[in-house]
């Protein structure tokens, strides 16, 4: 999505200041991926390209072609009529993990994430890190046990050395 413009649902033609087919095409060297604005209409209708609000102007990226969006379906519903079958509840860990996986996959395929997707990835990654720590309390307890065993071995070794030394001195 374009970060430069506050999105407004367009109900009437607005200041249309984008590139037209008849305009001189600009360089595509600086083309950046942007999302256009989905056109919102009050009812299902055939959209006139003139209705598109083009949200970038004159910046280098805007001189390349822009992306138009076209409404392909529009469902009018009264809120009370909406029903949606809720899927089985996920635990916070599962939910965060699932979101993280989906965002990572999206990042891998698309090559990048939007700012908003990146922010969500950061949030769920931190959540996963805290909920599923790489080192658990059990790991620490096991390490502590190993440390105690080592101390005992050191003690036993020292005792053996002391006995060997005393045998040599006899």
């Amino acid at each position, binding site marked *: 999505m374009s970060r430069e413009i506050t999105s407004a*649902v367009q109900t009437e033609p607005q*200041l249309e200041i984008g590139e037209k087919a008849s305009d001189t095409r600009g360089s595509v060297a600086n083309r950046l991926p942007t999302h256009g604005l989905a056109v919102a209409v009050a009812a299902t209708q055939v959209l006139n390209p003139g209705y598109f609000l083009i949200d970038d102007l004159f910046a280098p990226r805007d001189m390349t072609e822009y992306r138009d969006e076209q409404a392909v379906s529009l469902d009018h519903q009264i809120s009370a009529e909406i029903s949606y079958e809720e899927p089985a509840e996920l635990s916070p860990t599962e939910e965060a993990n699932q979101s993280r996986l989906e965002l990572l996959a999206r990042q891998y395929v698309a090559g990048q994430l939007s700012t908003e997707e990146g922010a969500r990835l950061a949030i769920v990654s931190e959540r996963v890190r805290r909920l599923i720590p790489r080192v658990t309390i059990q790991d620490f307890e096991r390490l502590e046990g190993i440390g105690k065993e080592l101390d005992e071995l050191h003690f036993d070794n020292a005792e053996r050395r002391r006995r060997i030394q005393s045998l040599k001195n006899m």
Partner: protein
Amino acid sequence: MSMPPDKAKDHPEKDDLVLKLPEVSPAQFKTNFIKNAVCELRFPAILEYESKPPLKLQSELRKEYPGYEKQQGINVADPSELEVKHVLRSRKRDWLVTIRTYSIAIQTSRYTRFSEFLDRLQYVFDKSLPLIDTNFFTRVGLRYINEILLEERNPVGWINDDLIAPIVNGIYGTIDRYVQEVRGSMEGGRFTFRHGIAGLEQGKENTYMVDFDFFNENVQAEDVMPMVADFNREAFRFFQWAIGPKAKERLGQPMTTEAK
């Protein structure tokens, strides 16, 4: 001590780098030119809104916005990109709340005064914040799209001469289309300012559009409402600077001292 002019050019002071508008007293007029007013809050994306309606959010807002429409947009250049929007409408259908996977916006085509707009925004903000799983916003934007109906397609007198100098000076002759976009920084954010005559193809050959968009990025939740109020003050000053005496005359005498 002020710098010599040539030095000042090489080392502009901080005030020279941001938008500088003349001070004006806040005021509210009986009429206005606002065709659309919108405040959009962008947040870390909520993926589930891509596949199912935001039921909890919709339920929270239903009292004020009972109408519902689901809209899907497809990117013509990249059909694999699909954007879903959930639009909630007020009973009179003059206010709408648009929920995307990454944003919530409130918009009206019947703007009367800022206090009402702010109250509506506060309501949506309070209801939605607990449900969007974040305490910060990636972008906060306030936009006013004004339409000034001209007489005989001549903006002279309606718009600040500085904005239409080539037209005032008769450089272009009869014009079919005249648009300009300016982007820059201001105290507390950034702005995009678009103005001009859209042209015959828009069916608005006698309309001069004045479109202000103020925004900032990475905003803590508690800073949103004061920031929007600041944007509104800046928008009012910008608008007062951008219009000419004929437009001011059409606005009439201020009714109150509340901005816009």
